[in-house]
């Protein structure tokens, strides 16, 4: 099965040990997700690609209950759409990043919940290519 990253500024796919990527500025030290060609803090072009930690804690969250209009692009239809969790996950020592969550039950989401990085098939393109996206899932065993 052919697979690709939805956007290579987020993560490389396939990869032996996939991780989220960020730009780290060699001038001012700012770190921003995803990678870019310049620093969002100071504008310097001297940025390096770094890998972000794979686990952190849930900092803020909500659940997207209705199917978004275009530019949302998944393989879902109005009938098959499932609400999805959205949140900001705090990666210790790095930053908080916006991400889809694998959990969509508000009863199972709370600030401070330990989370870990995962990847899922967001859609299948017309040529059969599976388009991979990143998400965070609650660390197993933590929830009742």
């Amino acid at each position, binding site marked *: 099965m052919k697979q690709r990253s*939805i*956007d290579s*500024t*987020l993560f490389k796919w396939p990869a032996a040990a996939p991780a989220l990527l*960020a730009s780290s500025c060699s001038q001012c030290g*700012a*770190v*921003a*997700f*995803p990678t870019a060609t310049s620093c*969002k*803090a100071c504008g310097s072009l001297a940025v390096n690609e770094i890998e972000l930690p794979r686990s952190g804690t849930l*900092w*803020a*969250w*909500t*659940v*997207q*209950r*209705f199917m*978004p*209009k*275009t*530019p*949302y*692009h*998944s393989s879902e239809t109005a009938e098959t759409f499932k609400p*999805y969790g*959205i*949140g*900001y996950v*705090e990666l210790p*020592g*790095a*930053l*908080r*990043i*916006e991400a*889809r969550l694998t959990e969509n039950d*508000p009863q199972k989401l709370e*600030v401070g919940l330990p989370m870990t990085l995962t990847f899922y098939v*967001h*859609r299948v393109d017309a040529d059969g290519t599976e388009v991979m*996206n990143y998400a965070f899932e609650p660390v197993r065993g933590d929830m009742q």
Partner: protein
Amino acid sequence: MRVAIVGVGIHPFGRTPGRSGIEQGAYAARLALEDAGVAWKDIQFGYGGSYAAGNADAVGNELGLTGIPFTHVLNACATGGSSLISACREIQSGASELGLVVGFDKHDRGAFNAHPSEYGLGDWYGEIGMMLTTQFFAAKLQRYMHDYGITSDALARVANKAYRNGALNPNAWRRTPIDLEEIKSSTMVNDPLTKYMFCSPSEGAAALVICREDIAHRFTKKPVYVRAAVMRTKKFGAFEVYGTSVSLDGVPNASMQASKAAYEMAAVGPEDIDFAQLQDTESGAEIMHMAENGFCAHGEQERMLRDGETDLNGRLPINTDGGCLANGEPIGASGLRQIYETVLQLRGAAGERQVPGSPTLGYTHVYGAPGISAVTILER
């Protein structure tokens, strides 16, 4: 030199089938001109904008093509604020003495569907379902409620107040009061926010005639003066709408920056403000913006709302015309609607929803994508 607002006009907000956004803008402009007793041919310049309903200078097709410089402003939720700031500079520079500011819009039903590329984001951001301002507001609120003990009761009280005030405003869209239980139990959209806690994209227009302070009395007995008008964009690392990452440093957001700058410009503090119009895209936004604009400590809102302190007859009335919740949000018109309402209140001409006690200082605040805010402080 201060700039004076000497005429105001509004086109009712909501849905007006068969009337374009530009026509609604011209309608509001005619009322503002009439209010100031000014002929369109005497207006020396214009600033204005819409997000989705055309170029502001096209109101000339309705009012008459007089050849004046008319600049279209496209600055999302800050379109009205940015138009007013530019118009004030035009007057303060000495280039002109009498001008028009107009904002209008006409949006389709349902959530906005902005494209990531308009904000410098990759297509992926929209494709995976993050290009929704509602998610940001809900997630920010979820964190805020966790940190400061705000409850869903307070969220419902904000919406309940908005619809009560809207019922007293003949130009509002939502004019039927909704009780607390119905607000809380309506369909959940983005947890913890239900349907009645969100505003919707709508239609409408508002316009101002402004002039040099020293000639204001030619046009009105009750000029309202612009003590401050500022706009700010997001700083790196702040927690803002359409932000892919947030720094751990707690950087002040655009609203906090704009608010601080406005108080400095006006040389007043939040304790001097008699009433305020705050961005209430959803009911939690009003609550968070109360603190971000300096009107209370974080968490104090729960008690203030329970005690009715932000009601029309309270200590600090907020969103006296029903805000975005009761008026909807035609982006280009929304900030000028707040200013229109503030001028009416300062003139003592707000009818059934008039704030008591002859208020002298009013405050307006908008916030929107992708992390921009405009604040004005107006004085009679």
